[in-house]
């Protein structure tokens, strides 16, 4: 399989290609379906909240659910993940309670990140889901460094890092893959190629034939996968993970998909791409997987309706709780800059409290444009 072919398992009619099907128990398949659906519904709800002005910002992943769920299912819970801002599914897959994601989006006192970052910049140490930051690409080399540490410590875990097609142009895509190639570090570089970086289409991002082929520049295999086919994604990632775990080094995995929605709640894609996204509606990864499950007699209309209702109810309950919580205390502005609060920060905090009060109220018109 060369890095310009594209791996597929589920064909259009929902049947699996002969011999391509990974050996997964029904329970797992249904769990994957549920996670995909939950991701979709959470995204929809949060975008909705944003439109109503109840949260400040959101990044939907609509159409990219298979990429998230298929890859994450291929990894062990002890593996370290370096997510991007567009992979809420990883958090759901790893069992992070939705309340934490919601709290983060409200930036409230219950947020484990203490309301310090914009929405969707999650971090869950307990689940080895490393803190997301806004700068594109910086975390790719972190994953390499962490995998080097895993190797040094003879840890059986591996690392996986998620980034977009735009991220392949970043400096630390280059350093991350180059260092990993040389060190034979156990890391998966998972590129969700959704063909857009905000308004910049993939042809303006790189002239390379595929993203997968970039692996060769670093002495590692590159595979190209139908990113809307959750079983193909699972299969490719599982093989790469096994390879890494065996000590054979990193793999670059390109998951071909499409960013169906806006880049973020601040973006208006009609400005630059018209209705192009509509073409991808019938390649929807959830529809595709549902067809597969139905063909295999594992899923019914009734189950579908029940699932959606249950998931929606769960999300709504958490949103209610999240919205009720207060904002982080003033003190949280000054802690965690260092392990201990140094004198000058203590002084600034004390001055703030003593002389200055909390100042004016939040500006209701302030809105994040991207």
């Amino acid at each position, binding site marked *: 399989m060369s890095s310009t072919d594209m791996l597929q398992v589920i064909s259009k009619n929902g049947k699996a290609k002969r011999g391509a099907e990974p050996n997964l128990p029904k329970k797992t398949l249904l769990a994957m379906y549920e996670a995909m659906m939950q991701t979709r519904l959470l995204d929809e709800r949060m975008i909705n909240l944003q439109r109503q002005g109840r949260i*400040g*910002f959101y990044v939907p992943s609509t159409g990219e659910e298979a990429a998230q769920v298929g890859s994450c299912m291929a990894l062990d819970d002890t593996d370290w993940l370096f997510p991007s801002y567009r992979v809420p599914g990883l958090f759901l897959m790893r069992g992070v309670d939705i309340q934490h994601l919601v709290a983060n989006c409200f*930036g*409230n006192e219950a947020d484990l990140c203490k*309301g*310090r*970052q*914009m929405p969707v*910049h999650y971090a869950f140490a307990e689940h080895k889901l490393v803190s997301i*930051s*806004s*700068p*594109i*690409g910086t975390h790719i080399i972190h994953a390499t460094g962490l995998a080097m540490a895993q190797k040094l410590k003879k840890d059986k875990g591996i690392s996986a890092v998620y980034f977009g097609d*735009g*991220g392949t*142009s*970043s*400096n630390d895509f280059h350093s991350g893959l180059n260092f990993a190639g040389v060190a034979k570090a156990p890391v998966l570089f998972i590129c969700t190629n959704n063909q857009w*970086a*905000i*308004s*910049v289409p993939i042809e*303006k*991002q*790189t002239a390379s034939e595929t993203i997968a082929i970039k692996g060769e520049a670093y002495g590692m295999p590159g595979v190209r996968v139908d990113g809307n086919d959750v079983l193909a994604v699972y299969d490719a990632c599982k093989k790469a993970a096994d390879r890494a775990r065996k000590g054979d080094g990193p793999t670059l995995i390109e998951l071909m998909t499409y960013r169906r929605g806006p880049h973020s709640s*601040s*973006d208006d894609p009609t*400005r*630059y791409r018209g209705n192009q996204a509509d073409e991808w509606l019938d390649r929807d990864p959830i529809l595709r997987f549902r067809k597969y499950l139905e063909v295999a007699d594992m899923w019914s209309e009734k189950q579908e309706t029940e699932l959606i209702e249950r998931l929606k109810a769960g999300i709504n309950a958490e949103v209610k709780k999240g919205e009720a919580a207060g*904002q*982080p205390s*003033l003190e*949280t*502005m*000054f802690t965690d*800059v260092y392990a201990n609060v140094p004198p*000058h*920060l203590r002084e*600034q905090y004390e001055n*703030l409290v003593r*002389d*200055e*009060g*909390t*100042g*004016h*109220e*939040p*500006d209701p018109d*302030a*809105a*994040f*444009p*991207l």
Partner: protein
Amino acid sequence: MSSITMVQAVNDALREEMRGDDDVVVLGEDVGINGGVFRCTADLIDEFGEERVIDTPLSESGIIGAAVGMALYGLKPVPEIQFSDFIWPAFDQITSEMAKMRYRSGGQFTCPMVVRTPYGGGIRGGHYHSQSPEAYFTHTPGLVVVIPSDPYDAKGLLKAAIRCEDPVIFLEPKRIYRAPKMDVPDDDDYVVEIGKAAVRREGTDFTITAYGAMVAVALEACEKAAEQGWSGEVVDLRTLLPLDEDAIIQSVTKTGRLVTLQEATKFCGFSSEISAIVAEKAIDVLEAPVKRVSGFDVPFPYTLEHVYMPHADRVLKAIEGVMTY
């Protein structure tokens, strides 16, 4: 004259300079058909085409580095960095290459260009869409650092920057991108001179230095101080490097009291340089300590942004401090 926002002022300045000089090109992420995420380059691609309004791959060091190459050739590139928080991958290009090209080549090669980038808080952007990076640039010889505080200056200073022979870091205070509007000349030859501060309000009791979105905050604080009978003077620095030292010293000499105002974190911030200049050259005129009002020395927070950012009441406290010393 037309009444426009700062975004429109920037857009107009770019359009006029591109019309006037074929060598002016714009490049960056989403600057083309999308017109920039803040719309500063809106519609330029329609008039000047893809060759002069270039959507680049997602690499800030690539954007600035490519612009350096273009400038070496003789073009006048105006790269946009989408948020100044994302300028760091290009910092090597800025400080090692762009800033030093003229000097290190004995004046044989130059790369005049204008790096435009929105900066500062006030839009609920959290850590990475809110920072004020000016002090990192003002410590770098070879750079010119310009920050407008209103649409009028934004247009005039940007046009001057594009015509400047030196590389310019042009920081646009995004908080005031869309309001207020202001009458701005349509005249092609309208420029605002780089290197000159402007007194935005005359006063006799204390001086506030400010720039960017903080100028309005300083003015508001002066209004409040006036209620207590204190007359404040506001010096809008406009160009941070080279700095108009004379304007500062002149004002402080008159008032004898100084409050400096910046959004950026305090420690080693730009305001510290103002304190240092005054402590070196005008200490005798000071009748009170120099008070700094600034962001706190922490990463820019999301939810508590309104606490982090200096506001008129915090400035007023400092004014009280110097007035009642």
